[in-house]
């Protein structure tokens, strides 16, 4: 919970600024859809929301949670601890009761959970979730309806906007068989009407986020839609968690925009197809997670060498190898920058939240076109699936019309001029001088002819490197949240930004002088960071990767290499979970104490 700490009162009351609700059950119980409905509702009632979930990587299911942080003010994290726990089974209860804060509320299925621990002032309310669902729907559909019953309960307990919630549910199920919607609403109503002992009802303060046209969705959706707005019309990929939803969305959406997304036979083929479409004159995209990104490396290096524009999305998950397919980690930064053989200049960006997934796709498109180079977007599992509410993007403002430049190229045209960055001439373009260019992965001269000449390799290396230098001069410096000088500057990238921002607020409320910066442009970094760092005693990179042989996370290593400044430190972790605010606070306090 964000500071100031909110108390869900055990006595009657009660308007709330925010609340964290954790639903714990098995994946087949449909708890993700409860979370999804609450998230969408928040978007429509001007509340803030952030969700967090764990999904077992096995299809047959297994323990799973969905946590929703609903609030009237800014919500930056999915919540360190829950105010309310809904436990579907004994195992859910046992695993998650510790996540409930002192004095919190636990609703549990009294038909499934037999042993409860009366501790820490927790208020327990047993509800026969399964039996009540059976009663509402009849015996056959109980597993399907339990989630809707719980949604009804939550709606009543928190005084949520029932009408809006029903509209959202209706929209979701309305496309299906009529009986599906009927059952869903029956279960919902039964939950809504259920009398829970002496539990008082709460109400949220009216939301502060009052902008018009608010939407709520997850990062994979926003990234997909951002790519469409960026004028990307061709792509190819191979399925893998948590990347797949992006390719599924693009596969369905692109034909509407006259484009094609190909499901390739593997990741090597996928990136090759995307490079083919880029060579053909389009800006194409490929993407994957963990293992698939490793497979793409050889072709990725080719795109740098051949100077072709390309967007590569890496929805990072826990590594190495198959690792933790459904957990969050940020351990692919070095791979993104240096992951293939040779000196392969490329750009690396990371979105800071779900909304930013849209804008980062636009930025990737802009850079790929301008520098004719691969651009990697490092998203992560947390961003991919969590739901946030925010203002809908202004499509008119950001729309990039796709184009194909088949204009004849003049006498002076070279595919690889040494003195400037240009785009290649795609097939279909006539060459005025009658001489056609070669696109080449062998070191080459300005025409693309193979050249093993020592001077040429040096000059071409310089030319390709120049793109990074030009971009570093152009990229904006990150904005500072909090104080622009003081004890420490916390640096985040990707989904760690929300918790880092909140940790900054908490540390400041404790009396420290702290600023926080988020790095959207990770490679190259913008010029002038040293001036930003100058005012702080410590610069602490907070990231979800291992501190390795030298005690520093991946971004911290890069910052240290760049600035050779011993005040650059790390707060790292790799437990597969998003940062809790208190983990960051503790880590930073240790550095501040000189430990």
């Amino acid at each position, binding site marked *: 919970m964000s500071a100031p700490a909110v108390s869900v009162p055990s006595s009657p009351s009660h308007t709330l600024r925010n609340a964290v609700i954790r639903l714990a059950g098995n994946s087949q119980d449909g708890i993700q859809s409860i979370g999804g409905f609450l998230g969408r509702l928040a978007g429509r009632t001007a509340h803030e929301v952030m969700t967090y979930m764990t999904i077992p990587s096995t299809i047959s299911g297994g323990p799973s949670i969905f946590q929703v942080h609903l609030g009237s003010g800014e919500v930056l994290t999915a919540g360190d601890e829950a105010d309310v726990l809904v436990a579907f089974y004994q195992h859910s209860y046992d695993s998650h009761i510790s996540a409930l804060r002192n004095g919190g509320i636990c609703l549990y299925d009294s038909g499934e959970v037999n042993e409860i621990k009366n501790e820490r002032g927790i208020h327990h309310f047993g509800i026969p979730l399964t039996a009540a669902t059976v009663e509402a729907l009849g015996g056959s559909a109980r597993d399907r309806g339990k989630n809707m019953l719980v949604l009804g309960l939550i709606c009543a307990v928190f005084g949520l906007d029932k009408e809006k919630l029903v509209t959202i549910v209706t929209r979701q199920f309305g496309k299906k068989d009529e009986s599906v919607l009927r059952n869903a609403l029956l279960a919902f109503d039964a939950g809504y009407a259920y009398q829970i002992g002496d539990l008082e009802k709460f109400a949220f303060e009216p939301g502060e986020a009052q902008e018009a046209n608010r939407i709520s969705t997850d990062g994979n959706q926003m990234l997909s839609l951002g790519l469409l707005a960026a004028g990307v019309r061709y792509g190819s990929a191979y399925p893998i968690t948590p990347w797949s939803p992006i390719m599924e969305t693009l596969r369905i959406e692109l034909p*509407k925009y006259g484009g094609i997304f*190909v499901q390739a036979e593997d990741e090597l083929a996928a990136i090759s197809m995307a*490079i*083919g479409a880029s060579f053909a004159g389009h800006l194409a995209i490929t993407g994957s997670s963990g293992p698939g990104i490793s497979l793409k490396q050889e*072709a990725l290096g080719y795109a740098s060498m051949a100077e072709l524009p390309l967007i590569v999305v890496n929805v990072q998950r826990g590594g190495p190898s198959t690792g933790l397919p459904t957990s969050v980690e940020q351990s692919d930064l070095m791979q993104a920058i240096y992951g293939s053989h040779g000196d392969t200049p490329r750009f690396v960006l990371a979105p800071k939240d779900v909304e930013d997934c849209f804008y980062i796709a636009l930025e990737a498109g802009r850079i790929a076109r301008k520098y004719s180079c691969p651009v990697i977007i490092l998203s992560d599992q947390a961003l991919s699936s969590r739901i946030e509410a925010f203002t809908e993007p202004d499509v*008119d403002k950001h729309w990039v019309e796709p184009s194909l430049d088949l204009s004849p190229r003049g006498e002076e045209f070279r595919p690889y001029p040494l003195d400037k960055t240009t785009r290649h001439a795609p097939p*279909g373009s006539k060459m005025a001088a009658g001489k*056609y260019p070669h696109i080449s992965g062998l070191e080459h001269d300005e025409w693309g*002819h193979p050249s093993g000449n020592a001077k040429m390799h040096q000059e071409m290396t310089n030319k390709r490197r120049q793109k990074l230098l030009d971009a570093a001069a152009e990229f904006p410096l990150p904005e500072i949240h909090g104080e622009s000088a003081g004890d420490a500057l916390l640096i985040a990238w990707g989904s760690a930004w929300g918790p880092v921002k909140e940790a900054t607020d908490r540390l400041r409320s404790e009396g420290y002088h702290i600023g926080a910066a988020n790095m959207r442009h990770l490679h190259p970094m913008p010029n002038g960071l040293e001036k930003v760092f100058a005012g702080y005693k410590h610069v602490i990179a907070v990231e979800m990767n291992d501190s390795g042989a030298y005690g520093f996370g991946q971004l911290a290593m890069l910052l240290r290499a760049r600035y050779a400044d011993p005040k650059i430190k790390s707060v790292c972790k790799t437990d597969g979970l998003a940062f809790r605010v208190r983990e960051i606070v503790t880590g930073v306090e240790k550095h501040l104490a000189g430990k």
Partner: protein
Amino acid sequence: MSTAVAPATAAPVADKLTKKQLIADHPTWCPGCGDFAVLAVFYKVLEKLQIPQEKIVVVAGIGCSSRFPYFMNTHSLHFIHGRALPLATGVSLSRPDVHVFVFGGDGDGFSIGGNHLNHAARKNIKLTYVIMDNFVYGLTKNQTSPTTPIGRKSKTDPIGAIDRPINPMKQLLASGATFIGRTHATQVKHMDELFTRAIEHDGFSVIECLSECTMFYPGAFDDGNPRKGGAFDVIDEKQHDVKDDVAAFKLADLPSPGKFGVFYQVNRPTKNELEQRWIDDSQAKLGGASQKDILKKRFEAMR
């Protein structure tokens, strides 16, 4: 400008394409390498078909044979080992107005790129692929290839190859390619005829061309060369029904040098066509809304 472009046609254009225009760097191949003849015939066929120069796209992976793009004065791309087909797939699907040609070796096509061959074939991607099969790894200097016959000595099999070679025709038949041919680099007229038919085929057309590596495997294909006392036995299409894949499998079983010509040819919708149909259907359902409006509507639905 829209990304939509009209499909390719081989219609002659005002400025006539000549063989001379197509010639680029002098090939770096060894003297006598079979690949020279393949290149010469390809120039001739392009000249004959009068494909506009700017619409010819030549793609290859890595190998001696895969150096092909540098010797073509057309739009060309020299890619990485084994991945030329997926790259060409990206070009073909996104640019129906150009003609896509892929050249490469037996290692590039059947070994490192073997899986891509299966998938490009089954998807029936519109392009023409010539595998210059020399039964050896030429560029890396004489290692065993997936088509090296059992017993043939190489740097990686000093006592003779022990692994069963693949049968290219059978492999291609099983893959779902819709045009499958076999020719010999010493048989210029036959190559010309086969290349022409492959290019005119609407779908994935693939040709295995036996092309001698004079440096490391001289004489490998003499048994198919009448001038060296071999037999160049061309398939009689009055006897062999090119739509009959079982008959084609039987032809593919004949001992070396086997048969030459078209083993198999059928018409099946290309992926290019099927994807375009989906595009047309999806757009028809949207009643001509602009792309920008489609995205705006999509956001509206998320409110």
